[in-house]
């Protein structure tokens, strides 16, 4: 038979121990596990996904997105809005988005757009400090704020970006050689 009151004392000892260990133990070993946020930051995990962003190569003009609208259609909460640009003279579709907006207030960070995009142009970002004071204006992000360079993409998610880059380079090489093959070689007279 255990003495009445031992359970209570055991509990007191546990909390006393934790009080003491909080001064010298490491966080993963029973020490203080809170992170002092603005000064310290939690370890950034590569696969972390927050809101989507658009990738461009080199300069913002060279945008990968061709405004095909697949992400717009597949987005479960329908937070993407795309309008394709038309060529100034001809009025033909220019395979470039004139408008590309994502409503961050609506987006649920599921990553569907990233999965379905056939042109490797939309990916999930790491940036999570996206507060806004207005729900309808500031949280609807236009193309300009969504665009981020490929270098940034390589920096935050090297594991995803490097194979994509290799694939794209290989495709470009292939295209070049195909072009080279297609143009008839100059025949020597």
């Amino acid at each position, binding site marked *: 038979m255990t003495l009445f009151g031992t*359970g209570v004392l055991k509990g007191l000892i*546990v909390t006393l121990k934790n009080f003491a260990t909080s001064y010298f133990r490491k966080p993963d070993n029973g020490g203080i596990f809170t992170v002092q946020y603005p000064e310290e930051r939690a370890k950034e*995990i590569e*696969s972390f996904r927050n809101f989507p962003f658009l990738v461009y190569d080199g300069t913002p003009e060279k945008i990968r997105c061709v405004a095909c609208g697949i992400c717009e259609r597949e987005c*479960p909460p329908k937070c993407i809005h795309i309008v394709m640009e038309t060529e100034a003279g001809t009025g033909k579709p220019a395979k470039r988005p004139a408008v590309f907006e994502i409503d961050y207030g609506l987006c*649920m*960070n599921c990553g*569907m757009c990233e999965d*379905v995009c056939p042109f490797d142009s939309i990916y999930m970002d790491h940036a999570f400090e996206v507060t806004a004071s207005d729900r309808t204006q500031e949280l609807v992000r236009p193309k300009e704020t969504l665009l981020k360079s490929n270098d940034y993409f390589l920096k935050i998610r090297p594991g995803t970006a490097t194979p994509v880059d290799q694939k794209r380079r290989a495709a470009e090489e292939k295209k070049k050689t195909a072009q080279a093959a297609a143009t008839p070689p100059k025949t020597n007279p």
Partner: protein
Amino acid sequence: MINTKSLEGSQMLEINFGPQHPSTHGVFRMNVFLEGEKICALKPVMGYLHRNHELIAENLPYAAVMAYTDRLDYFNSMANNFGYALAVEKLADIEAPERAAYLRVIMAELARIVNHLMLIGFLLNDLGAFFTPVLYAFREREKILDIFEEVSGSRMMCNYFRFGGVKRDVSAETLAAIKKIVAGFPAFLEEFEALLTENEILCMRCQNVGVLPADLAVNAGITGPVLRASGVNYDLRKVDAYGLYDRFDFKVPLGKKGDVYDRYYVRVLEMRESLKILEQALAKIPQGDILNKKALPFLKAPRNFKPAVGEAYGRIESPKGELGYYLVSDGTPQPWRYHVRAPSLINLTVLEDMCVGQKVADAIIILGSIDIVLGETDR
């Protein structure tokens, strides 16, 4: 504003616990009739968090629904994903490859540990402890959530499962990290139990409070730890042996009385069993594909996934009970009918039976011990 209503002829105090109340676990309301501190009648009122989950799902391709199932029981999205993936796989006759199946079990069991930890923490808060058990639970949960973030990209809304597999393969380092967590967890459980299990105040408060007799539990369709605490041996991991659960050696802990204390302790023991499963799974996990070849094309084009006309019911032993997904396909990319059997909702039906005759303080802990998440209850 304040009035006493007469109920069954006697004068009683009617109190609304919630929807704005610190311990109704979200936006839940209990309409309680009190005589002094004793509860004479109790009506649960729900629906404050209704988000039209089922109708949204019926208008989306099958793959897109996965992200919404995360939001059902937001403490263990991995288990929700598992159930939905099983249902769709049954409908379309796809099987997950071996490695993916192992990963699914690992994630589901980690989710179970997270869920039980949170439940016990918040139950203790309902009992009046000042956040200490919750924060100890958070300390350990944090480590598991880090794993979830590493494999799926998100800590709570994982969206990790796919039909015929999982979203992303798990690296050897991550597996090693899981192994480390599993190895270190028993020590934490010891500490946690030293703080709680034998505490006289906790025993006084929990033992013989909110007793749920086994026959009532079975008749009301209660599942999960609440049912097992009443002494009924019913665990879908054993009954259905879905996934790979028939390959692992684990036991089902059972309670006797079916009171709050049993419900608390059965969950502690379940965490220990989960650790056993995790150890075995981590030891045996093979190399290989993580996605069935049949399902691969649908990743890029979810709308091409059109299962044949038919119906399927996939169910798993979620940490809260039997979580079932019922799907009817009419051959289009969207399900024709989609229904969730939410354990939180069905376990809540016996709340009044357990509470009547107890004190106000007991109603709060009984509600806490059922383990409801309003996202799942209201959908």
